[in-house]
Structure formats: C-alpha cells, structure tokens
C-alpha cells in the first residue's frame, strides 16, 4: 500500500463514477455516479493525508468532503421528488428545458 496505489484506486473509482454521471439518464442514477466520484475523492484525500502530511487539517478537509456529499444527496433527492411530482418523470433528458 503506497501513495501511488491508493491514488490509482481513487482514480478508478472517480472515473467509473464519472462514466455513470455522464451516461445515466435517471436523476437518481446520476446522483449515484456523483457519489462514486466523491468516494474516489475521499480515498485520494485520505492517501494524501497519510502519505504526505498527516496533520489535522487534512482530516478537516475529509470532513468537508463528507458534508458536501450529504448536501448533494439531500438536494438531489429534493429535486428528484419535485421533478417527479411535476412531470411524472425523473429522466434528465426530459428536463433539458430547465436549462433554457
């Protein structure tokens, strides 16, 4: 277990999540992709913390990443609920007019 191997695993998690976030059509599945990307970020942050600079600051950074995930989930669920109620659908392709 070295810095490089941990970062490789984190990169793999991030890329798989990125694939999901781009390719999935259902909002909840897009959220799962985002979560997986953040999972990779957590692992990378832990690797940097342990192998480069094991100070409390790094732990605080990890705490912030976990908070970001919580906020993402809560708002994602709320928006998905709203979309579903107003359009009976939670596909991203059917909500493209929201960007106009």
């Amino acid at each position, binding site marked *: *277990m070295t*810095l*490089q*191997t*941990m*970062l*490789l695993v*984190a*990169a*793999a*998690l*991030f*890329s*798989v*999540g*990125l*694939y*999901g976030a*781009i*390719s*999935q*059509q*259902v909002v*909840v599945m897009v*959220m*799962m*992709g985002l*979560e*997986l990307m953040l*999972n990779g970020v*957590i*692992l990378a942050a*832990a690797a940097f913390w*342990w*192998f*480069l*600079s*094991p100070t*409390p*600051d790094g*732990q*605080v950074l990890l*705490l*912030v990443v*976990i*908070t970001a*995930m*919580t*906020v993402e989930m809560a*708002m994602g*669920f*709320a*928006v*998905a*609920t*709203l979309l*579903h*109620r107003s359009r009976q659908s*939670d*596909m991203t392709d059917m909500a493209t007019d929201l960007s106009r």
Partner: protein
Amino acid sequence: MLTGIVFWVLAVVAVAAGVAVFRADSMARATYALAASFIAVGLVLLLVDLEFLGVITVLMMTMEMAVMGIYMIMFMGMNPALMPMDMVHGKRPALAVAIGTFVVLAAGALLVPWPTRRGAPAADLVTSLGEAIMESKMLVMMTVSPVLFATIVAALVLALPRGRYDRLGDDLRAGKAPR
C-alpha cells in the same frame, strides 16, 4: 504485509462494486453495490488510522444508500425484472471521457514526484480532529453548520407538496387534522 493484502482486497471490492452499480439489472443491487463500495473505502480509511472518519463514512453511506434504494424504486418508473436496466445516453462518449480521465489521473499519480512525508500523525487522531474543528479550523465548522441547516430547510421546501395549513386545516388552534 497483511495490511497490503487487506488493502488490495478492499480496493478490488470498492472498484468492482463501483462498476456493478452501473451494470446491475436491479435497482436494489445497484444501490447496495454502491453501499459496498463506500464500506470498502471506509475500511481503507481505518487502515490509515482514520478511525473516526472511516466509521463515519460507513455509518453515513449505509444510511444514505438505504434511503437511496427507496428513491430508486420510487422514481425509476420501470420494472427491471421485466427489462434490462439500461437507461443511458451517449454511452460511447461517456466511456471515452471516463477512460481519458482515468489515464490522466493515473499518469499524474504515477509520474508526479510526490514529496516525502512531513510531520507525523498525532497520537490521538480523534482528539486532534476535534481540537482542529473547535479551535484553529472553527470557521469550517461554523460554515458547515448553517449550510447543513439551510440544506434541511431547502430540501423540505422543495420536496413537500403541502404547507402547514394542509396538515392541520385552516383553524390551527383547533389542531384537528382533516380526515
């Protein structure tokens, strides 16, 4: 040595479960594959002595995925038992972007001359984290708290279709719910 083996097992589980999220033909399996991926990462954090954050990751992500499962089933609007769960757009470009990202990140991880370790971890990491967020990094905590509170309120406002009058009727003092 043992740490190395445990790490590789957990790493394989994390990535394989991550891939399974987008390959599974069942909403429950996809969700709990993601939970497995998070639990594996949480256990890796335990390997690098991040006990508090590792256990918190397991705690939060199991909870989130249990809730996520409900949302998947509620909103997918399909029955994966009857048709394969393949609701994707732009599969090829997405795959290309993902592979490209992985190559760039992996090259960075392997080629960048990382500096050597500076400093040593505190004897009691939990206490050092607690002191950090309550002393030198208190601004972070003070920002995180209102953000989380605002999230609760905003999510409820977005998600709830009815206000207080729908719940208790016009006469709030009577306190009787319309049935």
